């Protein structure tokens, strides 16, 4: 499947914003089953953008500096990707939950996708006893890792209510867990907290999800959204596999990865500082168009 993704973010200011310095983490990475064919980044009004460089975690960062007063700022990323994958299935010879935990702590690798990076609490994901206990029901030590992860994925999908008003960007997993509600970011972070509490290497993925219109309806352009889900390292043989607790499925051909980090803070699509007198309003529009 070839996708054309357009991700555009519009900042509006009541009074001119005088200075901004931001990280743009919008260029998708290459990943097994996915390759980036072309990418362009456009900022209006035009300002200097440093070329993308490799980020601390798995992603690309471009740096944008705005040094003239602006009242509207539009950042548009266009990516063309080829995605070919199916969701992973449990196998009889999958390593056990305990086996994966043991293997993760023993790796001799400090590379960006070393499981050792993803077994500890991270700035936005603390390990809390409530989440640990709830998730542990699916993660008994002897169970096959992939099967266990699917069960946890489905349980979160079933037990949590999707509610954009229930949480905000910096809602902690513990708060989202208490409310049993939130959006993809919250579900992913709850699942990660639970996996890590069991010693499992779990990473946070940002990206896009292709939405399939209801039968007979046309695809709505710009109605797609950014998305987040979970990567779990399933031992040296199976490697990193994706699980999407928002939809209760494994990562498949509808999922387009942009970046992988320990949590949202490592890979937020846009962050940085904006200097000015007034607040800003933000509009995000995402379009995931299947080309062929």
């Amino acid at each position, binding site marked *: 499947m070839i996708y054309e993704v357009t991700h555009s*973010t519009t900042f509006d200011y009541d009074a001119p914003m*005088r200075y901004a*310095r*931001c*990280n743009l983490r919008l260029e998708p990475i290459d990943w097994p089953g996915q390759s980036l064919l072309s990418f362009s980044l456009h900022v209006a009004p035009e300002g200097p953008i440093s070329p993308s460089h490799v*980020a*601390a*975690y798995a992603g690309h960062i471009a*740096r944008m500096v705005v040094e003239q007063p602006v009242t509207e700022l539009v950042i548009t990323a266009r990516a063309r990707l080829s995605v070919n994958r199916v969701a992973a299935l449990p196998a009889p010879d999958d390593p056990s939950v305990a086996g994966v935990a*043991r293997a*993760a*702590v*023993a*790796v*001799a*690798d*400090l590379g960006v996708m*070393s499981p*050792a*990076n993803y*077994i*500890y*609490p991270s*700035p936005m994901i*603390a*390990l809390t*006893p409530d989440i*640990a206990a709830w998730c542990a029901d699916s993660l008994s030590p002897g169970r096959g890792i992939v099967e266990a992860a699917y069960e946890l994925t489905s349980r979160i999908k079933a037990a949590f209510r999707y509610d*954009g008003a229930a949480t*905000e*960007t*910096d809602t902690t997993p513990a708060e989202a867990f208490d409310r049993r509600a939130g*959006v*993809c*970011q919250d579900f992913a972070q709850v699942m990660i907290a639970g996996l890590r*509490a*069991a*010693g499992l290497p779990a990473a946070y993925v*940002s990206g896009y999800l292709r939405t399939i219109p209801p039968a007979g309806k046309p695809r709505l352009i710009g109605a797609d*959204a*950014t*998305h*987040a889900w979970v990567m779990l390292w399933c031992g040296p043989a199976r490697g990193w596999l994706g699980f999407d607790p928002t939809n209760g499925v494994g990562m498949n051909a509808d999922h387009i990865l942009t970046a992988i980090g320990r949590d*949202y*803070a490592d890979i*937020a*699509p*846009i*962050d*940085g*500082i*904006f*200097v*000015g*007198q*007034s*607040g*800003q309003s*933000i509009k*995000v529009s995402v379009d995931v168009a299947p080309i062929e």
Partner: protein
Amino acid sequence: MDNAAVQPALFDWVEDWVSSYASTAGSGDILRDSFARGETMWDAMLAGVAAFTNGDLANAAERVHRQARELGTAYRLPGESEERPWPLSPLPLVLGERDWRVIEAGVAQRAELHERLLDDLYGPQALVKEGLLPAAAVTGSPHFQRGMIDIDPPGGHRLYIYAADLGRGPDGEWRVLGDHLRAPTGAGYALENRLALSRVMGEHLNRLNVQRLAPFFEAFRQGMVAGCRRSEPRIALLTPGRFNQSYPEQAHLARYMGMLLVEGSDLAVHDDRLFVRTIDGLKRVDAVWRRMDSRWVDPLAFDSHSQIGVPGLMDAMAAGNAVVANMPGCGVGEARGLAAFLPRLSRRLLNVELLLPNTATWWCGQPREAAEVEAMFDRLLIAPAFETAAGLKDNRPVIGATLDADARAALIAAMRARPMDYVGQEVVRLSTMPSVIDGVMAPRPFTLRVFAARNGRGQWQVMPGGFARLGEDADVRATVMGEGVSSADVTVVAGALTEPHPAGSRLPIHIRRNPGTLQSRAADNLFWLGRYLERGEAHLRLVRAALGGTIDADGGMALAPATIDRIAEQLVASGAAAKTARAAERGSAQRDVAALAFAALDNGEESASVRALLATARGIAEGTRERLSADVWRLLDTSLPPLTQADAATMLNRATAFQERFSALAGLAAENMARTSGWRFHDLGRRLERAAETCRLARAFAGDEASVDDLATLLDICDSQISYRARYPEGIALDAVRDLILLDPWNPRSLAYQVDRIVGHLRALPSLRDDGMPEEQVAMATHVAATMAVANAASTDSEAMLGLENRLYALSDAIGARYFLQGSQIVRSTATIRLA
């Protein structure tokens, strides 16, 4: 030591102290051991203490405390906003050459080991690949910063300053309890403790042949200079701000080491270069000693929520344009989980054993070690390997044997679920040193923080001294002691004679008279310090006028009721007694002037009472403490207890006490502050405030309908009674008063005089224009001065005064817009878009 010069009684006192001490001190006490070896240095130190106190140890403690207070040494615990004095023991820890050689070599070695380890972790990562160090023993640290991988440190080093906490065992062996690699605190306290002690002990300390600390700080500075690209670099100390617990130490060190004390908003990055915002525009900064956690240092590289960092600092560093000491990411070496591997890494990286042994540590991330820790559970300290570990209350270490059966089972279960979060450590027992408790020498367990800095040749230089912390009670287990409750100076007694103080030294020093860089924030603070002090004094004068007007020898009113009303009106309108007035209006129709005066003087709830303005001035001064003398700070920092009685005598006494303080502060500013740009901003603030106050007072008391009592009050408030009487024995007349108070350029309290000074200061301050035209604030001030020059007594009516007052406030805004940090606040610095 010249015994003949010492009074014979001294050694009797010392003998008494020591013999009673010896009966309480356990084996392994450092003093007992030293005596057992036949060393004399403790004797000499104690004789020094005996000499200056005539054998009274309680007095020694009191005198040292007083010195520490005078120096402003203070320590703030997390969560406290008030500083509290860090109690300094009158008895320093005395280390002889025998101990010091071991410590010095061991600490320097350990600093070098950490640097090599960091080089590998942020470079080739060979130690992990070779299997000498598990990756998970590195990634567990929240201070491991992946973003720093493959970034070459400018100057070639990541570490410039390092500190180790040492414990001395009962066997006399020193071992390392912990490492400080990010922003070690305490070097400034060591410096201040030494100063306090030497002020009290004076020559006795010299006779002890104690090694000096100053060369260490000079070496540290030179080490940072060596890393910079420019030959005469500008070095800044980056502070999290005055609410940080070690801010007083930072301010002290910045001043001592000649570094600019900056907050994040003082710095800016353009084109990968680092600048400080000064009154002279942007100036290059070559190196930063950061005293904040790397998490906050740069919102673009680390936590995007940081409001106190410098956006882009890491870009400037990566481009080689800014040395950052210590480089972010260094903290990874502090973790207990990693420390377990240091003996092994020392053999691999340095080809030698550690000179100072580690605390024995087992990281449970390895199955065999985890099993051993479980087996030895009751004999070990169970501690977080990194920062958080479930089952340990507040993530604090616990001695296994102290847990009851349930807690024990729960902790072991948690350790089995996430073994990599835990270490087991031997329970370190500490030896004791003498402290003074209730006037007698008593043994207390102690730990020692030792500092090492990279010098100009890139080698490690260890501070001959440090910061000792003493436990509250006699329990000698290191964990129980915690952070300690008091501190002691650490004196290293050299075998060879120390170099004399470098008076008359021939150091090749480049002579400079230029006052140096003035950060915009410091200018801002000094300006507002001037304004608030002047406003406080003005309100005090109003209070005194109110008191003088209502209290007369005959018991009647000294002033006409209409004049008293005007004074009351001023007390209310100025904000000095606004709340009290509002509250009173609900009760009675009559204004109680005495109550208003009382509020304006001493009510801290009033926004502009004298007490409140002094408190505000103190807060502002704290933000620029490195530029104020200790005398100024003490005057601001000592608060008077709130008045409990509102009678006239009490109020007059308090008014006098406040007045003395304002006069002392004004005197120090006038006589002691160097005539730098900083002084100009301070004086500008004072002059501008006094000018505006004078306009306001003239409107109230010198309008066209002013009475003699009004005019007399104005002369009184403006401190011009005597000048007036000398000049006009005929009596009080409106035009003459207006001329003296407003227009006379020779009266230092007149409006014209203030305006002249304002113009003078503004013309002397730097301009950013290169076309020779005056900047906005200069033009505005010159315009005010021109108005004054052509004014006369008849034209200076209330309306004209209101116009001038408004122009002065506009001038203040223009000064702020030109020189200060206005508008550079970050309105939003957070990750902005969530994923849906």
